[in-house]
């Protein structure tokens, strides 16, 4: 089976006056059609930047320096900018972290959802009136699908007239109106109230089933990912440190960082347990090659960790980047 999206050896570096920052340093990932992949990691771990690289949205001084990105079997890194733009929103769409600022305050929501459609106008009828009717019909349809009550009457409203949860729904409608094969949802619940978060995640799940698309759910919350995804990739300092099926990762975490993440989540079934934070913090200096990226915060650090660590396969697609923890 060829994956819908395959990332091979992706490296995205930022040239700064202080030296090169390896935001993404050798990522290998696959997303199969229709599956839900969770991407977890803390701020600065490179999870957003990896998928901005896939989208072709890395801004200077950042640059994709190496790797291949195969979308439906075709290497898109070699495509002309216009061709890549044609893929965005049509084949692969991405929603940004903050729904409250990601909608244009000066445009009505109807206009904004229609924009994606207009950018990829392939299957719209010609002729002005027919076209306007078709666009409107599809905008109303998708807004209804994402659960905007009374969508037909609210097309002319501006984003500030909607609640945060509704704005996130509108964002998702913008991303889905062209029925992409993959939706990359970058922290879709970060800016929202806890009560609304579950609704938005449910919506993304519903849309995935409804439209038969794959979802990449980027989050810093392992709990969210564990609940919603089939597979997980744990990012740390620009690398995937552990990846595999959700069950395997939850039951047999094989990387000290993943274990730390699991121990730092409060659990309802074991309320007496202490929450153990991971000591230290992620710094750009951790992304140096020639050593384990987690070295400075790892309790198990030892001499063999001072070398480039390869992903080792533990079977059933469970892979880990650690030489100390081997079952």
């Amino acid at each position, binding site marked *: 089976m060829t994956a819908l999206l395959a990332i091979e050896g992706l490296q995205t570096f930022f040239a700064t006056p202080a030296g090169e920052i390896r935001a993404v340093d050798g990522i290998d990932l696959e997303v199969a059609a229709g599956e839900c992949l969770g991407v977890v990691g803390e701020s600065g771990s490179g999870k957003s930047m990896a998928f901005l690289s896939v*989208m072709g*949205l890395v801004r200077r001084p950042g640059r994709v320096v190496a790797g291949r990105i195969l979308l439906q079997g075709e290497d898109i890194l070699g495509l002309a900018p216009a061709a890549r*733009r*044609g*893929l*965005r*929103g*049509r084949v692969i*769409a*991405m*929603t*940004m*972290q*903050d729904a409250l*600022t*990601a*909608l*244009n*305050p*000066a*445009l009505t929501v109807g206009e904004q959802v229609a*924009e*994606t459609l*207009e*950018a*990829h106008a392939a299957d719209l009828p010609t002729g002005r009136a027919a076209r306007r009717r078709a666009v409107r019909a599809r905008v109303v349809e998708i807004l209804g699908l994402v*659960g905007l*009550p009374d969508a037909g009457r*609210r097309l002319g*409203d*501006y984003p500030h*007239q*909607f*609640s*945060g*949860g*509704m704005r996130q729904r509108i*964002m998702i409608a*913008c*991303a889905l109106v062209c029925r992409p094969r993959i939706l990359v949802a970058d922290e879709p619940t970060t800016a929202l109230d806890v*009560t*609304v978060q579950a*609704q938005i995640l449910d919506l993304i799940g519903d849309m995935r089933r409804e439209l038969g698309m794959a979802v990449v759910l980027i989050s810093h919350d392992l709990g969210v990912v564990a609940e919603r995804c089939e597979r997980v990739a744990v990012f740390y300092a620009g690398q995937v440190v552990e990846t595999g099926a959700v069950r395997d990762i939850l039951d047999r975490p094989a990387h000290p960082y993943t274990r730390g993440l699991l121990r730092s989540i409060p659990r309802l079934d074991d309320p007496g347990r202490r929450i153990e934070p991971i000591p230290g913090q992620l710094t750009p200096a951790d992304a140096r090659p020639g050593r384990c990226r987690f070295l400075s915060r790892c309790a198990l650090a030892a001499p063999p960790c001072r070398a480039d660590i390869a992903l080792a396969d533990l079977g059933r697609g469970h892979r880990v980047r650690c030489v100390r923890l081997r079952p």
Partner: protein
Amino acid sequence: MSESAGPLAAATAATTPARRHLRELGRDGATMAAVAVVLLFALMALLAPWIAPQDPYRADFLRRLQPPAWIEGGSWAFPLGCDALGRDLLSRIVHGARVSMLIGLLVVVVATSVGVLAGLLAGYLRGWVDVVISRLVDILLGFPYLIFAIGLMAALGPGFLNMLVALVYKEWVLPCRVVRAETLAAREQDFVEAARALGASRRHIMLREILPNILSPVIVVATFRVAYVIIIEASLSFLGLGVQPPTASWGSMIADGRQFLLNAWWVSTFPGLAILALVLAINVASQGLRDVLDPRFAR
């Protein structure tokens, strides 16, 4: 559903931003008075041939330098008196409003369009486009406005169209600077990134995503500049480089009267007052507009 629109959203849904701004403007007395004066001048310019009491071009040497009506020797048929050729001053001022308003509006509209496009390109594309446009702006800003316009008019020759060109030549610089600065800030906004992530083209992002968000300062600058352009036009016409006689222009009317200032003060004074009134009104009105559109500067 907990997140459905409340009654507040329903209440505000009926008012567009434009309507809200208009209502705010209406509350400001000085602004409303200024707007009324500007509208009066606009109406005057529009209806000049029908409301002017006399033919502005008909010379009558018997009425040479006839004083205003309320002074000994004046007549209410020529309320503000006559110039050195015996032409009715009021009628010439009414017709002169056409030149001032038309030049002011045309120059600012054309220059703002050019400036907005150049500013968007420079601010959004950056790179060599930005370097070229910004250096050109710096160079043009280095010349004093009037000197520059005089030089261009001397090169092009006088006339309405040439004046338009000469003024636009430098006038686009200011809106360009404003738009470039605003674009630099706007391009970093999340909604621009979000639009890019969904396949929006560069043209689309510049014109549909960024432009609507930076329109307020552009409108404010444009209204202020109308007043300034009117003064420059008057200055050029005063120097004989503007619209050509016998077309009535406030600047050339002031010039016509300056040799009679001691014995016929009205020839220069009334067109001067017209300029003063219109420019003042435009400035006060745009100040009010700025307070509404750009709350950062509110008094």
